[in-house]
């Protein structure tokens, strides 16, 4: 290559780099012709498809929220048709979320039904999983019958996991653990999956609040304490710790009985947590009695006793203090000043 051509080539590359980086403001910074217009299903979908390739999470989030916020004023038929035809999981998830938003806001009661029907007939597991995600943190479980019991038995593990995550997040963020029917539905879905997918059962039971659980759900959790799967027994122990006062006496006895029979230390730790939650400071005598069963867990029992003696008013605070104590105990003596 001749020197002049090399120089020209280098300059061209430099110019391209500068343009790409937006440094040559006069050349590169022509502002786009922004103008406001009415939203349409077609326009929003075109933007969402283009936005899929954007590196800006802010832009993708904006488009996702805009479709959902626009949903009540968009034509229902066009939205349903677009959803029925959509094969890209991300776009289908957003369209499903829009249909659900229409139902939740009272614009169209059939939106959620459309989504549920597609879920049960869709052959692509990635798309089913995406549509399940669209139902997250909504009240979909209240009006879709036994859909979740079917979803936790879906052939695809990713669909089962997404369904479990929905049940946990709905319990926590939509109902704050206070809605009995939603809690019972989550527990029953978890129990029904215990033999086919114990991880899903553990995911649900280990993370929901059971403070509004009814007698049937409490009984189901007690039965799960005798599961042959370690993770299911652990999760059931944690879940039983949160049952309402009306169920606490039988839950306490079940947890104490299992502690004596159990051999797995992970399950025993979960049982101790359940016993502590059921009784607060009142659980201290039970915990002290259990100290002799497994000397390997005496430090754990001491930590619970020490925490419960503080007389904190809520489980949230007790857990926080227990965690702090565990962190302190885990520090080397030089750091903790011992």
């Amino acid at each position, binding site marked *: 290559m001749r020197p002049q051509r090399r120089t020209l080539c280098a300059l061209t590359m430099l110019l391209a780099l500068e343009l790409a980086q937006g440094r040559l403001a006069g050349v590169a910074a022509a502002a*786009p012709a922004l103008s406001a217009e009415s939203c349409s299903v077609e326009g929003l979908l075109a933007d969402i498809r283009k936005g899929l390739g954007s590196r800006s999470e802010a832009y993708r989030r904006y488009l996702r929220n805009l479709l959902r916020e626009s949903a009540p004023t968009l034509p229902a038929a066009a939205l349903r048709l677009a959803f029925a035809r959509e094969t890209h999981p991300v776009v289908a998830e957003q369209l499903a979320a829009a249909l659900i938003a229409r139902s939740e806001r009272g614009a169209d009661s059939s939106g959620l039904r459309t989504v549920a029907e597609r879920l049960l007939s869709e052959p692509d597991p990635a798309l089913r999983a995406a549509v399940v995600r669209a139902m997250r943190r909504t009240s979909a479980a209240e009006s879709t019958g036994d859909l979740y019991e079917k979803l936790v038995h879906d052939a695809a593990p990713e669909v089962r996991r997404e369904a479990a995550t929905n049940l946990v997040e709905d319990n926590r963020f939509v109902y704050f653990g206070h809605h009995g029917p939603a809690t019972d539905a989550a527990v029953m879905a978890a129990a029904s999956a215990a033999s086919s997918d114990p991880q899903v059962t553990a995911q649900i039971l280990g993370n929901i609040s059971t403070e509004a659980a009814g007698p049937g759900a409490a009984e189901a959790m007690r039965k799960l304490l005798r599961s042959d799967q370690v993770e299911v027994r652990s999760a059931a122990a944690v879940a039983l710790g949160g049952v309402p006062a009306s169920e606490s006496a039988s839950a306490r006895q079940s947890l104490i009985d299992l502690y004596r029979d159990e051999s797995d230390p992970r399950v025993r730790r979960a049982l101790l947590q359940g016993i502590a939650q059921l009784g*607060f400071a009142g659980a201290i005598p039970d915990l002290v009695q259990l100290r002799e069963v497994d000397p390997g867990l005496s430090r754990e029992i001491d930590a619970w006793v020490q925490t419960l003696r503080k007389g904190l008013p809520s489980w949230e605070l007790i857990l926080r203090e227990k965690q702090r104590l565990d962190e302190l105990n885990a520090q080397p003596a030089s750091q903790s000043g011992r």
Partner: protein
Amino acid sequence: MHARPGTFHPFSGQRLGWILGGLAALVLLLGLLAHFLGASRRQAERAQAAPSGWPDARRKLAASSQRAAETEQASPKDSRPPDFEATTCWRSLDEFNEGVTVETFRKWAAALMASEDEHVLTYLKERLAELIGPDGGRAAEVLGWVREASPKEAGVFLSAIRSSQAVQQPAVAAKLAAMSLDKSLPLERRAGLLAALDTQKQLDAATLGRFTELARDASSGEAGWAATRTIGRVMATDSQRSGSQAAYLDKLLTIGSESSDDDIRYLAISMPMHADPILDRSALERYAKILTTEGSANGRDAAAHMLSLSQDKARVLEIFASAFRADGDICARWAMFRFAARAAGKDALPVMAVMASADPRFQDDHRIFEQIYGSGVVDFDRVWLSLPDQDPHGCLHRPD
């Protein structure tokens, strides 16, 4: 420079329309702001202080009830579909998104900023935060725009800085803090700068001291209020991250005891609720003093809430019993009554019985608490949710 078709020219009719529209919106906004300023500050502080003397469970129930109400609203009882506001879509926003830089942001975003489209304004804040990223130089550049910006622009710029990664750099945080203490700036702008610091993971002793001095200053107004809120918010973050609470609590108690502004005092007394500190002897006595000397009943209510988290339960019950007798305000009394239960659980029932015999308006409440504890409930959050009426004395929405 050749602009694309439809691009705004400096004095085109379209641009002029936006400018006039923007000015009209600004005038309207300022008018509304002036009208609502007095009421909105107190409402905002109630919202920011969140529990406002009510436990977490109360907030959760409120959210739950709101959701239930929404569901009810959406039920087919009323066949008419509700009215919904149409959204705005922006042509060429994809080009904006892909091409915009920190350098071009102000010029390119002008049309979007002039709109009243909340969705696009949220996008602008988040996009600018992405553009700043971890680059302290870019954060400083955006901060440089804040001084002369309109209130709406300043809101976008400061929100972007607040949520950018760069704001965690000590140099950027120091610039924000220094600017927030610059007396040549209007108090509202300084309040915005202080709010942009509330995502900090911690505040050093010097900054904490300066913010405390600002909040104690009788003329600090909105800025003192924002400084107090930022101390409280960083306290919650730092407490969760490292367990560190004492220095923040000390400063908030100082502000809560010494500020001459009722709103700032109330905020300072109540902000530690977000971190739920377990009070040591010194903090307990300082809150006890606030409980018996604070002029605002809402402030005394918040102090009672804070006192309920102490390991010295006997002392707390003693303080409540004595303050209950001396305080004639029914809402302050209701706070001491219910927070006695939070402090000591069913062991508080004898003290609550004495309160109920001193003031018969609390006899039903005592009976209900007795029944709930008798049923075996031990968690105060659940006790609270079991009450048939969580506001039996009409205190929740009472003006101070």
